């Protein structure tokens, strides 16, 4: 896994070089943007020199920070797909018990673009999806297919072509913030349990 930085700067580009480049790019921006850049540069350069969490690539596409990976995908809807998916999401009304059981998904969003012709699907999840694709295909076949069959050419979660289909529409995020790259969904549940028990203990002795 080759490290991949967010902005893909030229190799060996110093912070000073990056600042020079930014000033050139902002030269055409409105005055308030230029002022904002100058006001922000102090803070930007101080953490620019020491990144908080290394951003790496996650599998074939997408990026990863610590234990968390991102997947962003824009795929065309199949005819009638947008209406089907919208009705399905409305029925679910925010309920994703099946996703809870996967245990590695931080969030998912479904955004309909360009007059219901394309789906933007974005998610943050732990580790890599690739090793688990066969498990999903076996254990949550219908849950996957009922959603993604809304997209054109979805080969079915059980198809050997499904990995290629995902990668075909996946776009690596240029920028991405993760508050706790060191915590998985299961870590967070664990910390919540420990925190609750600790509070109860403190209540008893306090």
């Amino acid at each position, binding site marked *: *896994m080759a490290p991949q930085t967010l902005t893909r700067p030229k190799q060996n580009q110093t912070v000073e070089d990056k600042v020079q480049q930014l000033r050139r790019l902002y030269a055409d921006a409105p005055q308030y943007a230029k002022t904002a850049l100058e006001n922000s540069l102090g803070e930007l350069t101080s953490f620019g020199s020491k990144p908080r969490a290394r951003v790496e690539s996650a599998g074939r596409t997408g990026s990863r920070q610590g*234990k968390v990976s991102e997947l962003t995908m824009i795929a065309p809807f199949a005819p009638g797909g947008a209406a089907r998916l919208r009705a399905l999401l409305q029925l679910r009304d925010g*309920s994703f*018990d*099946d996703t809870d*059981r*996967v*245990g*590695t998904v931080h969030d998912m969003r479904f955004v309909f673009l360009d007059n219901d012709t394309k789906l933007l699907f974005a998610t943050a999840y*732990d*580790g890599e999806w690739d*090793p*688990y694709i*066969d*498990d*999903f*295909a*076996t*254990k*949550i*076949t*219908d*849950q996957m297919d*009922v959603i993604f069959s809304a997209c054109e050419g979805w080969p079915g979660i*059980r198809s050997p072509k499904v990995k290629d289909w995902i990668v075909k529409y996946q776009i690596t995020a240029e920028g991405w913030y993760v508050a706790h790259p060191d915590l*998985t969904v*299961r*870590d967070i*549940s*664990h910390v919540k349990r420990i925190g609750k028990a600790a509070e109860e203990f403190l209540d008893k002795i306090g």
Partner: protein
Amino acid sequence: MLSIKESVGETLSTPSPALETSDIQATVLRPRPKPYCGEYVILRIGNAEQGREMLRRILPYVAPADEWWVPSLPGWLGIAFTFEGLKALGVPQASLGSFPIEFRQGMAARAAILHDFGANAPANWEYPFGTPDAHVALAIYAQNNQDLQKVLDLARKSHHDLPQISVVYRMQFGELPEGRNPFGFKDGLHNPHVEGSGLAGAGQEASIKPGEFVMGYPDERGETANVPIPAELRRNGTFVAVRKFHMDVAAFRRYLRAQASSPEEEELIAAKMVGRWRSGAPLVLAPDRDDPALGTDGNRNNDFSYADDMKGLKCPFSSHIRRVNPRDALKNDIVAVDLHHFLRRGTNYGPPLPEGVLEDDGAERGGVFLLIGAYLHRQFEFIQSQWVTDGNFISHGTEQDPLIGNNEGDGIFTIPKRPVRRRLQGLPRFVTVRGGEYCFMPGLRALRWIARLGDDAEQTAAR
């Protein structure tokens, strides 16, 4: 809400056809002889025609699974090839390119996925592991040294007058007293039951579809492997992840001594790490003390589930056997456990470290494991990356397998307990990878197909 399928088997109803045991290598389906000794040999092929000549000569001695109990030889010979080895034998490009990516890359190139870092990194492996010089792996088993020498002699004669075939590696292995591994645990205990293999399964254990372990039969996904091509090459073949481990027995004993206040507690901690007592008795059935009668009873020592131990109070979630083979422990998760099995053929090497010795004597000792399955990626690689070297699947963060994990002195091991769990700190690396290779172990007809490759190779592959 849509229901979640409870088991893989539910979607499949077709019974598996009987396995062609006369065409499948014995190493795949049969346990090693008892008692056993043997030798692993690695050959390098410098010339394709000489490689195929060697193969033609050795072919009559390769043991099929059906003759295992009446061997026509005084020993058992298994043969497998790395990707480099298949290239060196002149296997056509169309076939080579059809092999799964992990096999084409080889185990060393998969180090990041397999967590083979630090002392386990391929740069520290013994030659020729992880280099392009490892081509053909021979595994020879016999019941005594005399028989072993006879089979070794046959193997030698297959190439002694072929100057382009060189022996690049040899290592002997043999049984330790009482069938224990170097750490002192009864070994070779569990293997999944292969449907149609002709061996009986233990108790309540599920049968696994043969296509998981041998190509040419339906697998747990209801599919039949369609690569590598042609079908003649893959039929009755499989893949083997070879791993050679060094075991630091003295470090294991010192760690137990430091964590425990009595010999009984040392034994309990050791059992918690493994998931079984030294006799082989599983913690789930014998939670408080060893039960040697249970340990030696082959009908009972694998007849258990984790259904009554979902909090891990008997057998910790993080114990070695519960990680490598979770049985029903993950039944509430979105994991299809039956897609992640391998057949494990283990052998020990080196002298035992005498009882009570706490300082390393410098001797090389450990185990060589042949981890066999039709899909390296979702079997060996999945188990190694998701279950052995990570703890997230059991909500244990980055905690690794206490015994075979790649701990570097800062490992932790969680033992669920009431009222509060116990957590051991500072685990060192007890097991170090000395080398490994991904190999293809063809069926006997496929071996003949390779041996016949020559002028008409391209046509055969294109069929």
